[in-house]
């Protein structure tokens, strides 16, 4: 074995374009053969035990990225590697390959009630993946694994839960079950798409803690997709900010949250409401609404709304630059931004 540490997940220039035959523009004109650039060149790496938070407004392509990562949608271009092996070659029509792939990659959805069969008991919900992947010698052993999983998720007494049906559980309890259902397969990579958005605040914290603890314990890595910036800050080690299908800023959570460099990140963070009533903040206003990801470019996608847009911004897309410690951003005016921050 080589000593070089291999990142668990490598995404290299992932692109997802949807073709639209006809499209009605805002002014009522019909456009032909347009391309919706849902994800437009995204690259990042994740190591074992790391949690990457992806934030952005609705329509920025964060959920599409999540679906690409677990191969629910095929890539238009680019490559995704898990443990060094490209997943593009995986043929999900073949049972063996599909099973192997699904065991390494798992997805947690927003609404747990929609991702379990309402007519199955919790026992069946949890046992099915184990049976499919032939984990455990017989059903007794599998039941033991399920009980253990329920105990770890804080659902005691675990035996009581096995015989229940999904409608007998609350949203928080069922979300725990859907997390544990993913985790009992020991996946190396998990995507959590708005996994806590529909839960009540008082139970969110426990679910977040469970997700974090399980990711660390199973030595997996996780992509946590959310529109809630404060939650993302709490759970993730790294953060990627997306705007119209591209990552505009990427780095360690504290770097990005406390020293945001890209104007979009700064606007987003300054606008996220705080629970501290005495905090005085300066709001950075951005004009308009996010435009649709059709016919973007050639300049920076954010330029039409940017408060510090210059001449260069409308002609070329700023390249991703690294300021040394893994904090990357794509903006021409980072020097100016840094200077402002220092003041």
């Amino acid at each position, binding site marked *: 074995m080589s000593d070089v540490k291999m990142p668990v997940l490598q995404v290299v220039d992932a692109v997802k374009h949807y073709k639209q035959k006809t499209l009605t523009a805002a002014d009522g004109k019909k456009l032909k053969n347009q391309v919706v650039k849902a994800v437009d060149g995204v690259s990042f790496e994740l190591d074992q035990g790391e949690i990457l938070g992806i934030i952005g407004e609705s329509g920025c392509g964060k959920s599409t990225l999540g679906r690409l990562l677990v191969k629910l949608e095929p890539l238009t271009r680019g490559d995704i590697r898990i443990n060094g092996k490209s997943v593009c070659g995986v043929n999900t029509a073949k049972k063996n390959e599909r099973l192997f792939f699904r065991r390494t990659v798992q997805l947690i959805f927003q609404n747990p009630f929609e991702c379990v069969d309402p007519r199955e008991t919790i026992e069946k919900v949890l046992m099915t993946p184990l049976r499919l992947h032939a984990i455990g010698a017989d059903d007794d052993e599998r039941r033991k694994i399920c009980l253990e999983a329920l105990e770890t998720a804080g659902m005691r007494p675990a035996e009581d839960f096995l015989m229940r049906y999904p409608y007998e559980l609350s949203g928080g309890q069922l979300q725990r079950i859907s997390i544990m259902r993913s985790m009992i397969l020991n996946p190396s990579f998990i995507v959590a798409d708005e996994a806590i958005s529909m839960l009540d*605040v*008082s*139970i969110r*914290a426990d679910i977040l803690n469970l997700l974090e603890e399980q990711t660390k314990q199973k030595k997996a890595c996780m992509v946590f997709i959310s529109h809630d910036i*404060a939650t993302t800050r709490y759970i993730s080690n790294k953060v990627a900010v997306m705007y119209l299908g591209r990552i505009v800023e990427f780095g360690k959570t504290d770097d990005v949250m406390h020293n945001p460099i890209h104007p979009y990140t700064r*606007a987003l963070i300054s606008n*996220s*409401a705080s629970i501290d*009533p005495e905090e005085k903040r300066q709001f950075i206003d951005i004009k308009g609404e996010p435009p649709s990801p059709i016919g973007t470019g050639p300049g920076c996608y954010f330029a039409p709304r940017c408060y510090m847009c210059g001449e260069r911004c409308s002609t070329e897309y700023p390249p991703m630059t690294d300021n040394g410690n893994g904090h990357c951003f794509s903006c021409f005016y980072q020097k100016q931004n840094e200077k402002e921050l220092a003041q």
Partner: protein
Amino acid sequence: MAVLKIQNLNVRYVMKERQVLACDDVNLEIEEQDSIGIVGESGSGKSTLAMSILGLLPKSTTQTDGEISFQGLNLVGLSEAEYAKIRWKELSAVFQKSMNSMSPVHKISRQISDIYRIHVPKATDSECREMALALLSKVNLPPRVYDLYPHQLSGGMIQRVSIALCLMFNPALIILDEATTALDVVTESQILREIVRLQETEKVTRMMITHNMAVVSSSCRKVAVMYAGRIMESGRTADILKRPKHPYTKGLMSSFPSFTGDRQSLRGIPGSLPDLSVSMPGCVFAPRCPHACEKCRSQRPELLETDPGWKVACFFPEEGGVS
């Protein structure tokens, strides 16, 4: 003088086999030009409270007792015809999904003038247009919105149209039921600032219903925390969010991840909402409360004033505040 005074309000949903007590002895007062936020989780009865003020609860399945005195008029048991006189004019509301509360086949212009003509039946078209354009400019919308259909507007713009509609007759009270919840971060913050600005320029009194503490913190002067149909704590936002006294408020506050400062570990509240169809002799929060004792389980704590303007429904408000 209080614009709205709610006294001992009970709202029950009556079904064949059981009754659910959605609002349990709610007492609340809203002063003129004040802003109050009602916070609580889903199922805490905050929307039921709003609906009972607006008279939108189905009469056949609900049973409302108590008194809602709105400018001296008791809203409980008010007939539909009498409600029609005050709706929009004195009392108006903005709901979460304005996209769904607007007609998709009529232009914004038509929808604004329709409402205007409810109370001013003889208004001419040019009067309506003038009024609508003035209204749109109040909420920072361009005049072109007047001739558009709802589907041509973004979520934030539609929400602004809704807010404009509810300001039409300068009502004495506006109720915003999760009005910013479905919006994006930047749009939400813009709308919230808009609402706060309108409060100063238009002198509106408002009631914000939300599950998000951050919304209350940035836009309301007072707050009432609801849990399982009862008000747990009410008072000034600055006091309650800084030093909550009720264990439930404390729990709720520590469940919100903070944005600045340390990343302290988040703690949730164990357990879940009690079944509201079973009556509870003690405090409704006792089964989930870390400080609950025998007294909490057998006796019901009243909402009592501990400091001026600060009411807490707990036997041990200080203990709740220490840990």
